[in-house]
């Protein structure tokens, strides 16, 4: 067998690493490690220059392993692996050492010891690299259909976009009608269109599209499988249908908080929420002359810290509507900050003030009080800008409450094996750059299921989710990173610990050559390593993280410690 030839590339990351860690010392140290045949440092290894240098060295030095010591694999590993592959080296013969997050950033006040630590990390990386093995990635077909859970505006938009891309779509809606929460609104912000103007054409197109099948009054009962091949059970009145889809979009929306016990809600008949207000005056009932709205009810408080994002817009919309119906009506909005971000909302906010809507700022430490025993008669508020108490007569008090997660979100999140955030909304893969994807491949989220979103925002997210969910279906196949677990049949005792701990349902016990053993579904395994840790006999081994590889790292570190830190 030819000798293993390791190349090491140490990155300065501009000053991020180079400003703390003495990179030349790390380079010099690495030169003397076993099997290392070339060591380089780069200002930015991730630059085109750095990447071509990796490729050149693989060719010139006939490298059989590449170690890059730089930043985080989370952002940069695919890049370096691709560079290896382009130079003809199997991408799994690459090892990443993080000397930025794990070293320079956290030890920026101690360059000397940071430099020693960087050396140790590189030694460990090289030790492991020597035992890396080439791997083949698992490839599987993608079934050409998508599931959209939820038939509100977001769900319908996503379904239509996918169908217009030529993809078969199933829409599962819990209620007997399409339309979701928006159906309950009277008019829509910011265009003041009637709800029907948006909903009717959408519903008609969804119902009439040859590539969309709608399941009304139905719920997702079970989901098995993985990207490309999800088996979905849809239940309706005890009847189950089985669907096969390649990707899934979660568009289950959210619900308005009903603020029981706050400001006389549920005890005083004329204290309602914004949604109830819109519903009750849809039919043209007599409008009350004095209306007081209280914003941030149940939002931006210790028990629910988030801002409902568009509740201020809702209050503005309804206040304008009231003033347009009856210019003499006295409409006051009690708020903590008016969240009129962007162009449209700010315009409406200004418009509302011009129509005579009063905006009064209150302090949450001294919240408004609804006065009246059997009915709300007035609202007392400490006017924060005037510094005095004001009593506003009220025939109707409208409470502006945020959207809260649907109660069944947790059930769906468990079925799909995707997480919820602390507020109970679905948690995306990355807040900034992957806002509508989950870490789990093939599942996407849009609309208020993710976070309270206005209609334009929900619709944008729905289109975005449709773009993402369509891509694997167009490709026709997906590849799975080869960091999956395999079971050594000879040592497995079929104790079942692995089956229990696997969060992805990827391990099962089955009959093997030497009796009952654990078996891992490669397509479902995410490489989390739980089963490896739980295995009492060492039978579960993870590709790229096997015992030999990890022990060699520990060995390299221990060796350095015995010899006093230096070589």
């Amino acid at each position, binding site marked *: 067998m030819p000798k293993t030839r390791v190349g090491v590339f140490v990155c300065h990351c501009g000053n991020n690493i180079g400003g703390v860690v003495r990179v030349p010392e790390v380079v010099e140290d690495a030169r003397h490690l076993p099997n290392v045949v070339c060591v380089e440092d780069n200002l930015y290894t991730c630059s085109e220059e750095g990447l071509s240098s990796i490729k050149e060295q693989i060719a010139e030095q006939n490298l059989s392993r590449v170690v890059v010591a730089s930043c985080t694999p989370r952002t940069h590993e695919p890049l370096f692996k691709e560079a290896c592959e382009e130079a003809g080296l199997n991408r799994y013969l690459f090892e990443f050492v993080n000397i930025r997050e794990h070293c320079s950033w956290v030890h920026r006040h101690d360059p000397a010891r940071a430099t020693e630590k960087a050396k140790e990390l590189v030694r460990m990386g090289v030790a492991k690299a020597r035992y890396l093995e080439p791997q083949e990635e698992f490839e599987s077909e993608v079934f050409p259909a998508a599931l959209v859970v939820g038939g509100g505006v977001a769900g319908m938009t996503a379904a239509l976009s996918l169908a217009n891309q030529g993809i078969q779509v199933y829409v599962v809606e819990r209620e007997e009608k399409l339309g979701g929460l928006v159906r309950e609104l009277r008019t829509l912000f910011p265009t003041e269109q009637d709800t029907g103007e948006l909903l009717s054409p959408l519903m*008609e197109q969804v119902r009439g599209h040859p590539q969309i099948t709608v399941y009304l009054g139905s719920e997702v009962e079970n989901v098995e499988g993985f990207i490309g091949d999800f088996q979905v059970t849809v239940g309706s009145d005890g009847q189950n249908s089985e669907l096969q889809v390649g990707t899934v979009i979660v568009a289950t929306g959210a619900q308005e908080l009903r603020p029981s016990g706050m400001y006389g809600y549920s005890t005083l008949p004329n204290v309602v929420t914004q949604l109830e207000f819109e519903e009750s005056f849809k039919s043209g009932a007599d409008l009350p002359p004095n209306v007081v709205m209280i914003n941030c009810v149940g939002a931006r408080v210790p028990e629910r810290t988030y801002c409902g994002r568009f509740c201020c817009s809702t209050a503005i919309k309804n206040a304008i509507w009231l003033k347009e119906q009856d210019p003499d009506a006295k409409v006051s909005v009690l708020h903590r900050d008016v969240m009129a971000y962007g162009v449209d909302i700010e315009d409406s906010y200004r418009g509302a003030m011009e129509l005579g809507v009063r905006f009064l700022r209150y302090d949450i430490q001294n919240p408004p009080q609804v006065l009246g025993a059997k009915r709300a008669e007035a609202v007392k508020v400490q006017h924060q800008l005037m510094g005095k108490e004001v009593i506003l007569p009220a025939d109707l008090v409208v409470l502006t409450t945020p959207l809260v997660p649907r109660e069944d979100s947790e059930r769906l999140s468990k079925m799909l094996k995707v997480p919820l955030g602390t507020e109970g909304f679905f948690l995306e893969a990355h807040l900034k750059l992957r*806002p509508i994807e989950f870490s789990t491949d093939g599942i996407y989220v849009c609309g208020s299921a993710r976070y309270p979103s206005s209609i334009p925002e929900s619709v944008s997210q729905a*289109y975005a989710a449709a773009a993402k969910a369509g891509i694997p279906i167009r490709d026709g196949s997906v590849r799975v990173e080869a960091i999956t677990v395999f079971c050594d049949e000879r040592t497995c005792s079929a104790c079942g610990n692995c089956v229990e701990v696997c969060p992805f349902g990827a391990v099962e016990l089955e009959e093997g050559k030497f009796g009952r053993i654990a078996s891992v579904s490669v397509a479902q395994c995410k490489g989390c390593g739980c089963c490896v840790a739980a295995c009492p006999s060492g039978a579960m081994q993870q590709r790229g993280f096997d015992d030999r590889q990890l022990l060699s790292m520990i060995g390299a570190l221990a060796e350095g410690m015995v010899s006093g830190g230096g070589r």
Partner: protein
Amino acid sequence: MSSQSVLVIGGGIAGIQASIDLANMGLQVYLVERTPSIGGRMAQLDKTFPTNDCSMCILAPKMIECAGHDNVHLLTYSEVDEVRGEAGDFKVTVRGKPRYIDLAKCTGCGECTEKCPRRVPDEFNMGLDKRKAIYMPFPQAVPRKMTIDAENCLYFAKGGCRVCEETCQAGAIDFEQQEEVLELEVGAIVIATGFDPYDPAALKEYGYGEIENAITGLEYERLICASGPTEGHLRRPSDGKVPQVIAFIQCVGSRDVNYKSYCSSVCCMHATKEAILANEHYPALRSFIFYTDMRAVGKQFQEYSIRAKDEYNVSYIRSRPGRITVDEQSSNPIVWYDETVFGEAGDSVRRVASKEVELVILCQALVPRGVHREMAENLGLELDESGFLAIQDRLACPVDTSVPGIFACGFCQSPQDIPDSVVQASAAAARVAELLSPNSRKPGDA
């Protein structure tokens, strides 16, 4: 069948995301970027709210993924000249400005930059330091190639010099290079031209340009950034001293009918982030944020501003200051403001107050790019009253412009933050995919 190619105008995060999605859909993408590198405004940011992710660290992999994609044709330092035709069949003329560099030969080594004698204000660092006339806009630039800025190059001015040519071992310098005109046929167009900061000098009361220690939000962003002109040391312009008390003034030109009546959407969180970063760099530093409404409306934004108050020495004062004066001795700006909230200052009166600080950051309005109006005219697109690209149907089709087949995402169509821009970019990709899908079946089709 419609052309299976798409033109994307603008190489910031929105244009990059749209290009990646379109390319992953199997469409051919021409990404036209006006400057020498893709990256846009996000490349200039230090960290991003509310996660404090290093902006370049999350952007750079996207830039490389985009440029390296087999289906993406990157046309940097280029502009769209003319567009004819209609949805499914546009003819586009793209003009590639001469870089005077042979891209195939340039290795981006930077030797030429070292030797170039001409120093000019560095626009990437908001003019806070100098770059050379032959330059790479920032170290992670994509493509990682040099550009000669002909307006400032001594050879083009006086005919002499040519030091870069002598220095370049790769022989990449080409002073004879001519403008290149490209004719493209595309089925759809995505616009993602982003924003420019509004010039706060228009608001005389804040003395921008005259008061040395009053800088803009984007200038601050470069100062606090480890790869910026001061390597992340917050040195104020007048004397290089690190300030211990700083103030942010919000809505400078925003939410003001005399300037820009709209809310720029991102500045409340931007200032909160900058105040947090300042305190992370200097734990004794105090920040005051003068705001109108604290619009922390996104996921984790409220929690972020609560943390700013509780853990990072940030105080929020509800007021729009009327004036900034300067203490002659110390060069400290003095912010004059009306206490609008009873009790905010800890007592029960309201008065006109002043706060002496060592540095003021003006969080100015953000406006569509300067070149945007001309581009809109070229493409026959309508603008709304605020100058953003008009959207025909905000509710049902929030990324469709007034011209079928042309879509708009990110700040060029309305003020928004990075995640919303990324969402709209993917949304625009979906709309393009619908338009160009060869097997698309719409209701009513047989």
